[in-house]
């Protein structure tokens, strides 16, 4: 019984979102009552605007997954948007795939301003560039940091950044 309700809800959501962006190929899937849709990177901004229009008024989180050497993944990065419709408590997981060297996608700050720090954190950790962001720079790490530490090809102990400081001796201080 719950299954039919869930699938009809999902079907409703699919048709609502597809109706807003005709011509965009959306790949839908569900897993344990979570609805997920994969969007081509080129159409990302229009799909984000459409999902806000159909009621997803809160951007819960933006995150990213580095799929290097993961299973039989063909793409390198997966940027994930977690959306919530506050009125109906519907949730939607929106994903897009990116590959090097073109790691630029449009910023979602024009849709939800709360994307500001989320996008800066994703840039900080994975190096995804969000075009059109009003204040695009690192959020957590020092500005002069060179690498993107949550990428899978970055060593967990770093590349010597944590030892790269002047040493103050007793006589100098």
């Amino acid at each position, binding site marked *: 019984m719950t299954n039919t309700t869930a699938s009809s809800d999902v079907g409703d959501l699919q048709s609502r979102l597809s109706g807003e962006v005709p011509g965009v190929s959306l790949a839908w899937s569900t897993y344990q009552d979570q609805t997920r849709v994969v969007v081509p990177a080129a159409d990302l901004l229009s799909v984000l605007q459409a999902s806000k229009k159909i009621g997803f008024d809160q951007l819960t989180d933006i995150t990213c997954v580095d799929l290097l050497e993961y299973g039989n993944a063909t793409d390198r990065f997966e940027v994930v948007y977690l959306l919530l419709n506050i009125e109906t408590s519907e949730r939607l997981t929106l994903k897009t795939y990116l590959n090097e060297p073109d790691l630029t996608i449009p910023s979602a700050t024009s849709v939800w301003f709360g994307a500001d720090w989320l996008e800066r954190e994703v840039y900080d950790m994975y190096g995804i560039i969000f075009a059109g962001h009003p204040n695009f720079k690192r959020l957590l*790490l020092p500005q002069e940091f060179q690498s993107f530490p949550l990428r899978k090809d970055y060593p967990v102990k770093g590349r010597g950044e944590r030892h790269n400081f002047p040493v*103050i001796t*007793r006589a100098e201080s």
Partner: protein
Amino acid sequence: MATEINKTVGDNVFLTTLDAAASWARANSLWPMPFATACCGIELMSTAASRHDLSRFGSEVMRFSPRQCDLMIVAGRVVMKMLPVLQRIWLQMPEPKWCISMGACACSGGVFDTYAVVQGIDRFIPVDVYVPGCPPRPEQLIRSIIDLQEKIQSGGTYNAREFKLRILPEGPQRFDEDELIRIRERNGFKLDPPTYDPVH
């Protein structure tokens, strides 16, 4: 001559050196600067609070301005973004000054062997007393302050000239391999060197 003076003033005069007098005064009025960045800071607060009562040992006056302090207690992990701040605060403290490294994280990075966490503050600033533990109990911190008082009294000079001789870095040098692996190899265990991290 001495007996003449003794007759006149009795036990009211003590003879000592200027160094000893200055060190005695300094050791018994340490003004700690709490540099509490993580969970050890909670234990530091507990040490200063009424139950453990650090004021029994003459160093309860925590000041949050480094310019009013002479003892820095680094309680917690220091990340690479915080280390320049730590060094700056250390340089802002007036001489003579001392540093207690409290907890596994401040002493060695603790379990946080990651790209962002400094593997021991003694690599970059001088440290006088290390307190082991995760977190150390307040009794341990009190013990470290008593040890520091002994250290000040036994070696202090009134113009802090003992510090001028210490021109070399006091922490471990930069290492190219995991310290633990080298120690184990010295003890006869052969381990593969870490291949993922040549620079460390």
